């Protein structure tokens, strides 16, 4: 036995008669594409292997998708309710009192605006509109508010739509109004032909609309003259003038021309600009944006924490495997690819499940009063945001892998 001295050739003698050429260092490392592919497949297989952990992570994503979309969707529903009338009135341009930021009655404007608008060259028609809050006396002695719309006959714009009983023409009958079907119960079992006292006048129910509930009491329609009586609006005053542009006329251009012509006594807005003004007001001047923004964010944060922790724990539970991968020659960057692919998979699958569930929820709870609005853009944004969220959430796991010593595999 020798100490620290190199061996004899005994080993070779015991080997094959003519020793094969010794293996040489391997020339190439895998290309980036091969590494991506290898890491992607390994990552997905690892993910599918631990079904319970996969489920946990997916629940985090699904939870965030549902909570965020439910909040955001309800907020969108509220926004849309505030412009419900603008979207359905048929008018391209609105002449409103100066300082108007919402679809509400302000200080009425003079009929001069109406006269002048009617003679503008690109105007198809211009019609006055009355808007105000009145109460309906119920048979049991209560009083329920409605949002009264007064519209000139024959109706060119701003009339009742989505009618489920009667026709808009019933407004031509004396002291006849159209109410919201969803309010029939509230107004004391309203039926066609029911008589109710509205602002002290007896009126007859001539028809029903469905789903015409703004972010205020539901709409009720009356002829212009009846509405003026109920609202006690002076004969030469009105809340809005609705303007229809001639075909081929840009409403924005027409609005600008009208504003120039009519001066500062009124505020003229194209329909879309009016809607934007309303949205802007709701976001800036009310706590709605903050409230819903916070709860949406909360959903995302909770989802982020769940995804982050469950991906971290998946890594910690399998440290030996990751250590082995490192010993076999993967780098932290390779393992980052693995986690990236897992994150994207979680985001895509979780978003799909979450959106399916939230769409069902939206359908289930949809009512004239509450609508959960899911726009196509929301779907796209959900995938995008959740992918970003999951990728960022995986960084805790990546940090652990970065610090993982491959030497641990021999322990």
């Amino acid at each position, binding site marked *: *036995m*020798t*100490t*620290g*001295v*190199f*061996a*004899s050739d*005994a*080993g*070779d003698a*015991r*080997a*094959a008669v003519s*020793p*094969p*050429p*010794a*293996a*040489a*260092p*391997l*020339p*190439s*490392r*895998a*290309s980036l594409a*091969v*590494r991506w*592919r*290898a890491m992607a497949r*390994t990552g997905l*297989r*690892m993910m*599918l*292997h*631990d079904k319970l952990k996969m489920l946990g992570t997916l629940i985090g994503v699904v939870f965030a998708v549902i909570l965020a979309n439910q909040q955001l969707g309800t907020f969108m529903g509220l926004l849309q309710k505030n412009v419900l009338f603008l979207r359905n009135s048929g008018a391209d341009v609105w002449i409103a009192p100066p300082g108007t930021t919402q679809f509400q009655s302000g200080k009425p404007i003079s009929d001069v605006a109406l006269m002048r608008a009617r003679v503008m060259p690109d105007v198809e028609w211009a019609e006055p509109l009355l808007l105000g809050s009145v109460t309906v006396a119920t048979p049991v002695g209560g009083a329920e508010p409605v949002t009264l719309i007064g519209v000139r006959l024959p109706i060119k714009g701003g009339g009742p739509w989505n009618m489920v009983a009667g026709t808009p023409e019933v407004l031509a009958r004396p002291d006849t109004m159209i109410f919201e079907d969803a309010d029939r119960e509230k107004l004391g079992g309203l039926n066609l032909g029911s008589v109710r006292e509205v602002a002290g006048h007896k009126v007859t129910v001539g028809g029903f609309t469905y789903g015409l509930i703004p972010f205020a009491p539901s709409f009720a329609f009356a002829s212009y003259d009846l509405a003026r009586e109920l609202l006690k609006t002076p004969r030469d005053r009105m809340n809005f003038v609705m303007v229809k542009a001639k075909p081929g006329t840009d409403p924005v251009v027409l609005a600008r021309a009208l504003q120039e012509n009519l001066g500062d006594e009124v505020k003229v807005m194209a329909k879309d600009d009016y809607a934007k003004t309303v949205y802007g007001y709701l976001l800036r001047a009310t706590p709605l944006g903050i409230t819903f923004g916070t709860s949406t964010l909360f959903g995302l944060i909770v989802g982020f924490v769940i995804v982050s922790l469950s991906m971290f724990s998946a890594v910690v539970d*399998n440290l*030996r*495997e990751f250590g*082995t*991968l*490192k*010993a*076999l*020659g*993967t*780098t932290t960057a390779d393992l980052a690819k693995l986690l990236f692919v897992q994150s994207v998979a979680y985001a895509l699958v979780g978003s799909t499940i979450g959106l399916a569930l939230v769409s069902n929820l939206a359908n289930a709870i949809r009512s004239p009063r509450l609508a959960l609005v899911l726009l196509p853009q929301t779907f796209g944004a959900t995938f995008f945001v959740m992918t970003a969220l999951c990728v960022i959430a995986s960084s805790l796991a990546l940090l652990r892998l970065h610090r993982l*010593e*491959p*030497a641990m*595999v*021999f*322990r």
Partner: protein
Amino acid sequence: MTLAIEARDVVKTYGVGDAATQVLRGVDFRVKKGEFVFLAGPSGSGKTTLLSILGCVLTPTSGDVSLLGTRVSGRKESELPGLRVAYLGFIFQGHNLIASLTAAQNIALQLELRGHSPREAMKEAESLLDRVGLGDRTHHKPGELSGGQRQRVSVARALAGGPPIILADEPTASLDAQAGLLVTEMLREMAKERGHSVVVVTHDNRIYHLADRVVQIEDGTITGESS
């Protein structure tokens, strides 16, 4: 002639200050190309530490290590994975196979990391499994294999892609005598066939007869060797 492994005056100290313990105290260790060497010694003598340094997963405190004439000690951390891919195959005490991958996929992954295309890798993985007598177990996951079968998959994975050096740390420790012998015989046979140089850490004197050389390490120094 260049050596497969040449380690000179390797020192490894764990910890710093009062807590510092010198685990390797100037180890000289050499392995010729194609040699099949055992490293033996009592528990805590530094076998695993030395193997880790040779395997480029641990850096020595001082001393030089070269693999096939290429100096691997004193390299930047970021160069080590590349060196492992180019030079080394590992067999661990626990099989350390990836539980979610089949036997063939475990081997194919190592091959892909060594630059093989996925298709090539799969073909080669299957032929290696055939060679270790597991041709009918390619699609089994580690959990569906016996201990001895798993270790045979590990052998196939270590040899996959033909790294010049194979390092094994107590590959038979968790196997019964017969399975341990079978795996070690298989490793030796294939290494000799293909020209791999092999270092096996083992306590198991029942398999010493398979070694070209048995090197003894005690308390961080090489104390002798026998052939």
